[in-house]
């Protein structure tokens, strides 16, 4: 059975060009970038070159704005805790949108436990943040607001430039989690007025185990991980040179190919949406047009998402769901609840994230499998019988 992988938001294969480029840093140039001898310098040079590529990728002021971390979760923790704690004398209020990733929300909640006031910024039914509300909840004590560039579960792209303008009128910093958006839509930190930005290596077809926090010149943050003072003292720990070098190359390739790849995926995504919405009582989640070009997300009434995922896997198709049963916490997706879905509606979600392996030929196969899956599970479900009767 051929495999159709449509869960690129969860994990992506490392680009073979990236792997070839970074491979020597596992076995040949395996030095510690902190060592001053030639073996160390060779590794350091490669890491610095990678930093430059990433700065260019997001149009940063210079390469010293790029702080490498061990992944996006770490970068989000560093942004939220690092910025709030470093600027505590300016105020003790923080803001996060209700659809942020847990690696932003949980550090925010920890700040709250430690005396910060946390205000949640709501979104509308398509997932767009409420700009008027943002303006009204910002105070002179707000040191940090966090709004993601685009959401991983519903694909909605936020109006970052407008958000930045509002945030900066009051004076706090804006953190933007761009994990889902990176490599899908162009990002320009200077033009969009972003103070802190998170990127993930694997979401660019780079090696897992690397991430980046962009820190705008003049923005002061403090470290979360203490140790030997690598990465300007903001992220201690010996660099994972292979992953960092790979991430830079992945960003360079993404920059070159993004436009072409996104315009290739867009009609495929639209066809997926059109075909799957033919199913009775099926709905698109997220924004119909302001959404990532590789992202199609749905919900189906009367059935549960983990069952959908397992059933699709039997067809050789890998998808994702925001169902409670598929999560470690057994809570339904906070994102789906934030856009106003009821618990029982949020359980029946399915997310398709397309990638380089996706082609137009996948559409009829996946649409047919989705239809059969939904019908089979509805035949089992007591709720759909009540609906039919």
């Amino acid at each position, binding site marked *: 059975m051929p495999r159709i992988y449509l869960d690129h938001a969860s994990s992506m294969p490392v680009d073979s060009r990236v792997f070839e480029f970074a491979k020597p840093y596992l076995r040949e140039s395996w030095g510690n970038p902190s060592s001053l001898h030639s073996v160390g310098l060779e590794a350091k040079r490669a890491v610095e070159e990678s930093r430059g590529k990433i700065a260019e990728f997001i149009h940063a002021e210079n390469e010293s704005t790029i702080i490498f971390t061990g992944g996006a979760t770490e970068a989000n923790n560093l942004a939220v805790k690092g910025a709030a704690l470093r600027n505590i004398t300016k105020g003790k209020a923080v803001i996060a949108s209700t659809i942020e990733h847990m690696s932003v929300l949980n550090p925010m909640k920890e700040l709250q436990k430690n005396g910060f006031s946390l205000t949640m910024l709501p979104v509308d039914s398509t997932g767009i943040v409420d700009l008027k509300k943002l303006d009204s909840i910002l105070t002179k004590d707000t040191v940090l607001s966090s709004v993601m560039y685009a959401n991983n579960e519903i694909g909605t792209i936020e109006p970052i430039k407008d958000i930045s303008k509002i945030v900066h009128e009051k004076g706090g910093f804006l953190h933007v989690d761009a994990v889902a958006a990176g490599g899908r839509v162009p990002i320009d930190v200077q033009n969009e007025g972003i103070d802190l930005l998170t990127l993930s290596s694997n979401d660019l077809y780079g090696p897992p185990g690397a991430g980046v926090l962009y820190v705008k010149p003049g923005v002061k943050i403090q470290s979360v991980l203490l140790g030997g003072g690598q990465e300007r003292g903001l992220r201690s720990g010996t660099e994972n040179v292979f992953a960092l070098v790979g991430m830079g190359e992945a960003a360079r390739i993404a920059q070159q190919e993004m436009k072409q790849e996104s315009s290739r995926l867009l009609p495929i995504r639209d066809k997926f949406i059109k075909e799957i919405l033919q199913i009775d009582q099926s709905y698109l989640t997220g924004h119909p047009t302001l959404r990532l070009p590789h992202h199609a997300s749905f919900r189906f009434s009367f059935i549960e998402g*983990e*069952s959908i995922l397992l059933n699709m896997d039997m067809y050789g198709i890998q998808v994702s769901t925001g*169902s409670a049963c598929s999560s470690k916490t*057994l809570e339904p997706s906070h994102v789906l609840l934030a856009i106003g879905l009821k618990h029982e509606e949020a359980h029946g979600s399915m997310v398709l994230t397309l990638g380089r392996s996706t082609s137009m030929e996948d559409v009829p196969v996946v649409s047919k499998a989705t239809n059969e899956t939904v019908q089979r599970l509805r035949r089992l*479900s*007591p709720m759909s019988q009540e609906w039919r009767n």
Partner: protein
Amino acid sequence: MANVGYSKKVMEHFMNPHNVGVIEHPDGYGKVGNPVCGDVMEIFIKVKDDIITDIKFRTFGCGSAIATSSMVTELAKGKHVDEAVKITRGDVANELDGLPAQKMHCSNLAADALHEAIKDYKNKKQMK
């Protein structure tokens, strides 16, 4: 080895569940769970001389919710109601070669639905 995902048996029962459906005018009916939590199970039984002669279920829920429903109907079919009422959540999980730890509670309600159906049968019998 640590438990990764579902056992083969769970997947078999998920993909080809036994005894799916409804019994018109059942001798006993049990329904547990609620859609907010993500699991709803209902079981219908037909009983003759205290023996469960037919049993059917419908389930809204995850893979283990469907597999445990299927398994509990298999275990109860043909049994005396006093035997069937002793079937526990643990028995169901064991027969399926185990369930992932976080699934042991929320998605293992099938035995409860069976117990409810038997209780309903006994209540109806008393009223006769």
